[in-house]
């Protein structure tokens, strides 16, 4: 399954790529902000996107809305170093498949959310 990783921290992108690749995912691209993420998603058409909520140019919620608006949308999973309770209902209103706290990220959890019905 092809994945796009969107996060402004390079160290997290490296770790996440290794985690997901070892879990069987094919990471086909990385983006460090919302605008690049939208371009990359359009160009690469990944099956899944790991999307950080706090991006320098936009919130992950807004980016997620744009990403999931298309007919043939990718499955988006939100991540943040903050907890889900810091965001309340927003997580469930933007079209994402789910949320994982960064420290809890594993390929298995990611796969479970991606495969879940939106």
């Amino acid at each position, binding site marked *: 399954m092809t994945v796009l990783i969107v996060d402004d*921290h390079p*160290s*997290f992108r490296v*770790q*996440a790529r*290794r*985690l997901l690749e*070892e*879990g069987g995912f094919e990471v086909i691209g990385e983006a460090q902000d919302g605008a690049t993420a939208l371009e990359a998603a359009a160009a690469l058409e990944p099956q899944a996107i790991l999307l950080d909520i*706090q991006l320098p140019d936009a*919130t992950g919620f807004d980016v997620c809305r744009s990403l999931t608006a298309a007919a043939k949308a990718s499955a988006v999973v939100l991540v943040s*170093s*903050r*907890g889900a*309770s*810091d*965001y*309340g*209902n*927003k997580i469930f209103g933007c079209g994402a498949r789910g949320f994982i706290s*960064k*420290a*809890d*990220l*594993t390929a298995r959890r990611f796969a479970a959310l991606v495969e879940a019905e939106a």
Partner: protein
Amino acid sequence: MTSLSQATYHPLHIGLTGLGGGILIATAIGLATSNRGPFPVSVITVGPFFVTSAYLVAGWVGWKRRPDSRIGLMLLIAGVLYAAENMAPIDWAPLFTISWLTGNFYENVVGHMLLAFPSGRLRNQGERLLVIAFYATGVAGSVIAQMFENPKSVAAILPRNLALITSAPHIGDAINLVTEIAAVPLTAAFVVVMVHHWRDAASTTRRALATVYWAGAVAGGLIVIRNVLDSLGTSFTSSMTWAWLYTVASIAVPIFFLLGLLRLQMTRAALGDLVIELGRDRDVQESLRDALARRLGDPTLQLSYQLPDGSWIDDAGEPIAPPHDVVGRMVRTLESDGARFAALTMDERLREVPEVVDAVAAVAGLAIANDRLRAEVRLQLAEVEASRRRIVGAADAARRKVERDLHDGAQQRLVSLALGLQLLQDHLAHAEDVEGEIQTLQGELRDALAELRELARGLHPTILTEEGLVAAIESLAERSNLPVTLSLSDEDRLPLTIEATAYFVVAEALTNVTKYAQASKISIEVSRNNGILAIHVTDDGVGGARIGAGSGLTGLLDRVAALGGSLRVDSPVEGGTRIHAKLPTT
């Protein structure tokens, strides 16, 4: 002050009063020891004593109360002349002669007073000529006429007229006729001048003038009626009824003059009300100018202020030319420590009541100084309030920054560590001991991350910025160990500082409940009404909470107060705790 001290002992007034009193005593002795036996006590013999006394007392009181006015002095003079005129029944020829020579001079003085009221000074040359002419008819009618004839009615029974040069009654009659004819245009001129004075008078003076014109009407009426009755040849003016009427009316004249003076005095007393009125918080609708204009009875009054740079502005703050005297207007400047700071431009006629203007100027000075102080205090208060708001805002911003730094720094590193450990664990899937060790490390790492998150949240909850107050409070309630009942009105977002303060009130209350209250349930109510955000946090615990040193509530109290709100803790022992906060939302 100077005029008052001058007023205490003035030889002229004491002399006149003494003279008037002396004449009265002499007359009394004369009446009692007359060659023809003591005069019977009747209104004719006793009345003049009362009239004279009324003039002397009114003169004395009027002069004491209004030392700057000559009316008091003139009343004393009129009293002496009245006493002198009424020495007529005395047998001794020189006194008798003086008495007849003084004739009705006191009436001339009364006329003079009518025109000179309230200052006792005539206003212009025309008035002076008029008064001189009036005195001239008095002199002609009394002095000159007496040189040529004896007083008719009493000539037979009274002593010799020493002023008689030659007995030529036709000359005396002619002079009397001339003065009587002259009286008609003179009276008309008097009325014209009085009407003029009335029209020109400031309202404060007008009230006093009204009283005095009553005196004029009474005195003038007496003269006219007497002259008419005499010319009709009736004997009514010799009757007891006339004597009574004449005495009572004559007493009324000085009393009216005194009342007129005192009414001016009362105008001054009314200034006391002005002081009180201006001292109070004036109705915002009524400016200081309006209050002064109303009190002075001058709707045209202007109040202008001089700025430190020397320029002038009016009551509304518009720049104006420096105020100066123009025709019909007078300027009174207000000074403090020798520096001019304001000016009153008012009707020139207010010059007639200098002490009123003085008092108003003093009062206005006080009120303006007061207004300035108040404005200054208001400005300082506004500055302090603004600075408190800025401090709260700055503290919030600082907390948000620390929260972001924690998030971007330590938290990210820990996240990396956790993920690194996760990878390591995946790689070492078959080495049991190492995997156990890594799991322990991961657990500790997660705890560290959770604590860090909690710390960051305490500094500034992201959900508050992201989702607003309602979501943030819901999130607080979710994390609480106790069941929480929520009643939150979900409306538009408020300024961050207000939301943060409300949030911290709830958070602090929940922390206190968890730590100390031993409660079983909590209810949180947040509502908005009329620009006020009201927060109520209630628990059923042991109570006894209070705002005090070291309590987190004290910091909250300051925060709430800085935003112009209020915080109340209602916490009877064993009665649960209710925390009420109110925050203005604008």
